[in-house]
């Protein structure tokens, strides 16, 4: 070998060594015959954890435990047989547990056989690989078990759909694969959906979010919401995303919208507006009706506390402002006020305002108040009208009462006059007629005596009339005392009073009353009623042979029915109502004398005691008078 050649060879060898030392892989050459290391690069020194000087010439088995066990000759034999061995194994060095890939081949160089091992650290590669495997697995689990639909769509077809998505649409997982999207969308929403599947390039970065009606396998539709984005899949655009069944949310939304609509309509119908007041700034959001009530255009109307107060009637401001303040400061539990607001056209409207603090800060200061405004002008007008009417009515009642009192006073005066001043002259007429008859009897013939008798009869009638009129007016005016009265006792009393008259007529008087029957009545009133009815019965049955009077009674529900029956001349029922009217006579006065007031007194007394009276009769067959009184 020439010197120049030798030099060049040395340089090449040195370069080669340097190159090998730069490699991340370890290279080790071992003589097959004795197992001693003939070369190790830098990386090999690191692996074997020894400087090159101590490595070279040393048996490899001193550094690799695994080789010790197997024994060097068998290692060599194995390598020669398979020519090249690659295996992975663990290695502990100062970097910790490493995973290495060892590649061993047998080569011949000159007279010797060598085993050359290349060792590569694959710890990082292995770790990355395992992470990839794991993460893909995790993601698959995540997607497969997700409770939202997950999809991948390309060219208008479903490339991937997770089981939940398939289930939402009612398909088997496999059936979803490559399904045209058109089959899964409501026809009316299809155009919109398809537009999102074929984006322009400029739209690739956009996120997709929209709702549409999905079509279930069974043909029904359900609302869904999409969150998606575009990806590049094998050089073609595709969309991936999630799909959510929003049926429930829609229901809630609809319910909420309906409820809001209802509230809006209710407020509108009730002529109510609402306000939402920021108490710190005094600014308020108000509804269209709020502005409407005040005559402003809702679109341009703005409201704040200042303008609200400016529109308020000064009288009301004095009342409302303290209440408003007190409520905001929490001093009163409720805010409910009525005030007048001047409308845009300058008229006054009555407003009922009800409000409630809905937000306070940590210090308890009111921040926000919600409330309603209601136009109560009509109600106020009605109230005023009612108040005015009431006042008028009261005044009228007072006036009438005074008139009545005056009338009553007049009646009393009249009664007094009747009883006193009318009776006195009668007494004079009667007295002097009598004196005339007695003192001048020698000068009077029988005709003169007849005249005087007739004068005195006239006086007697007049006197009776006055007495009955007084009795009637007394019945009207007297204070009643309603007590329990034993009917039998009262009748017995009347019967005793009439005893002589009844005996003279040879009349029969029977009483048929239940044991212990009582009624609630005024004693004098009922006495007068019975006396008059018995008088009446006696009078109109005096020609019967013999007159028969029957007084009876029975309990009927909560009332007592009493009757007075006679067998007298009776009357025609067409005159029924007239017999109770004042001064009414059905018979000639000379046949049946009377004032025509008796039954009127009876009816009046019954009315005042809360009872009723009526009569039943057939001419010639007697009459029965019925009384009903409370028990």
């Amino acid at each position, binding site marked *: 070998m020439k010197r120049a050649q030798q030099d060049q060879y040395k340089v090449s060898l040195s370069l080669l060594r340097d190159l090998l030392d730069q490699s991340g892989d370890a290279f080790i050459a071992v003589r097959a015959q004795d197992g001693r290391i003939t070369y190790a690069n830098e990386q090999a020194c690191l692996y074997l954890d020894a400087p090159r000087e101590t490595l070279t010439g040393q048996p490899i088995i001193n550094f690799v435990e695994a080789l010790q066990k197997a024994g060097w000759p068998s290692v060599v034999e194995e390598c020669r047989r398979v020519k090249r061995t690659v295996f992975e194994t663990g290695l502990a060095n100062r970097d910790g547990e490493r995973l290495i890939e060892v590649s061993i081949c047998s080569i011949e160089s000159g007279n010797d056989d060598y085993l050359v091992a290349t060792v590569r650290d694959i710890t990082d590669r292995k770790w990355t690989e395992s992470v990839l495997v794991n993460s893909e697995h995790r993601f698959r689990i995540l997607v497969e078990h997700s409770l939202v639909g997950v999809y991948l769509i390309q060219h208008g077809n479903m490339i991937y759909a997770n089981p939940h998505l398939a289930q939402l649409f009612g398909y088997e997982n496999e059936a979803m694969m490559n399904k045209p999207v058109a089959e899964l969308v409501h026809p009316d929403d299809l155009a919109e959906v398809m537009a999102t599947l074929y984006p322009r390039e400029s739209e690739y970065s956009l996120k997709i979010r929209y709702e549409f009606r999905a079509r279930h396998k069974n043909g029904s539709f359900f609302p869904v919401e999409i969150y998606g984005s575009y990806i590049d899949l094998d050089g073609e655009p595709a969309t991936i995303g999630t799909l959510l069944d929003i049926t429930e949310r829609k229901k809630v939304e609809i319910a909420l919208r309906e409820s809001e609509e209802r509230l809006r309509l209710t407020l509108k119908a009730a002529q109510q507006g609402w306000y939402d007041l920021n108490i710190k700034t005094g600014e308020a959001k108000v509804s269209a009706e709020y502005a409407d009530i005040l005559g402003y255009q809702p679109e341009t109307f703005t409201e704040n506390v200042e303008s609200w107060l400016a529109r308020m009637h000064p009288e009301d401001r004095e009342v409302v402002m303290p209440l408003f303040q007190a409520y905001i400061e929490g001093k009163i539990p409720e805010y409910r006020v009525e005030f007048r607001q001047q409308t845009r056209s300058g008229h006054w409207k009555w407003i009922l305002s009800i409000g409630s603090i809905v937000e306070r800060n940590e210090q308890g200061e009111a921040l926000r108040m919600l409330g309603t405004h209601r136009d109560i002008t009509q109600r106020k007008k009605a109230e005023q009208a009612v108040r005015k009417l009431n006042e008028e009515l009261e005044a009228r009642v007072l006036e009438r009462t005074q008139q009545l009192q005056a009338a009553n006073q007049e009646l009393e005066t009249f009664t007094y006059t009747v009883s006193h001043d009318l009776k006195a002259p009668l007494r004079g007429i009667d007295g002097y007629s009598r*004196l005339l008859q007695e003192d001048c009897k020698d000068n009077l013939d029988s005709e003169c005596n007849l005249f005087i008798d007739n004068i005195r009869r006239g006086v007697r009638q007049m006197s009776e009339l006055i007495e009955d009129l007084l009795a009637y007016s*007394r019945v009207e005016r007297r204070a009643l005392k309603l007590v329990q009265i034993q009917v039998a006792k009262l009748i017995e009393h009347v019967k005793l009073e009439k005893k002589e008259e009844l005996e003279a007529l040879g009349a029969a008087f029977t009483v048929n009353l239940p044991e212990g029957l009582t009624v609630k009545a005024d004693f004098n009133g009922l006495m007068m009623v019975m006396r008059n009815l018995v008088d009446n019965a006696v009078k109109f049955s005096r020609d019967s042979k013999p007159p028969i009077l029957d007084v009876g009674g029975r309990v009927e529900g909560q009332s007592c029915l009493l009757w007075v029956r006679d067998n007298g001349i009776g009357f025609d029922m067409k005159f029924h109502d007239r017999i109770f009217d004042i001064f009414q006579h059905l018979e000639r006065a000379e046949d049946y004398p009377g004032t025509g007031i008796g039954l009127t007194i009876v009816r009046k007394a019954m009315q005042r005691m809360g009872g009723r009276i009526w009569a039943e009769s057939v001419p010639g067959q007697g009459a029965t008078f019925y009384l009903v009184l409370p028990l």
Partner: protein
Amino acid sequence: MKTGELSRPILLVEDNQMDVDLTLRAFARRKLINPVEIARDGEEALAWIPRWEAGEPLPLVVLLDLKLPRIDGLEVLRQYRAARVSRTLPVVVLTSSKEDKDIVAAYGYHANSYIVKPVDFDKFMEVATQIELYWCLLNQPPR
């Protein structure tokens, strides 16, 4: 009967001339010997109080109508009862009124009796007889 009481009068307070006349005639028929003094209105009736206080004999009974000119009978009665001299004087209200109100008021002022004047002269005579018999003969008046 004591002779002193025969001379004591009956005081008739009555505004109606006919009633006065008929009453006097009725008493005359009864041969009543007591004098009858007449007061024609409330004022005249009250004018008796100072005279009684001055020593004139008290009447055996006062027959008092209620409806009188100027001062009515109830007021006369009230003042009679207020005056020491006539506090115990027998007063019979003799009137046409049968009104509860009048009856209650009369007894409220301590009338000794209340009699309604009948229109019928025969009955009126009967009343006059009874009054005279009871108040002038049977009744023992206060001194």
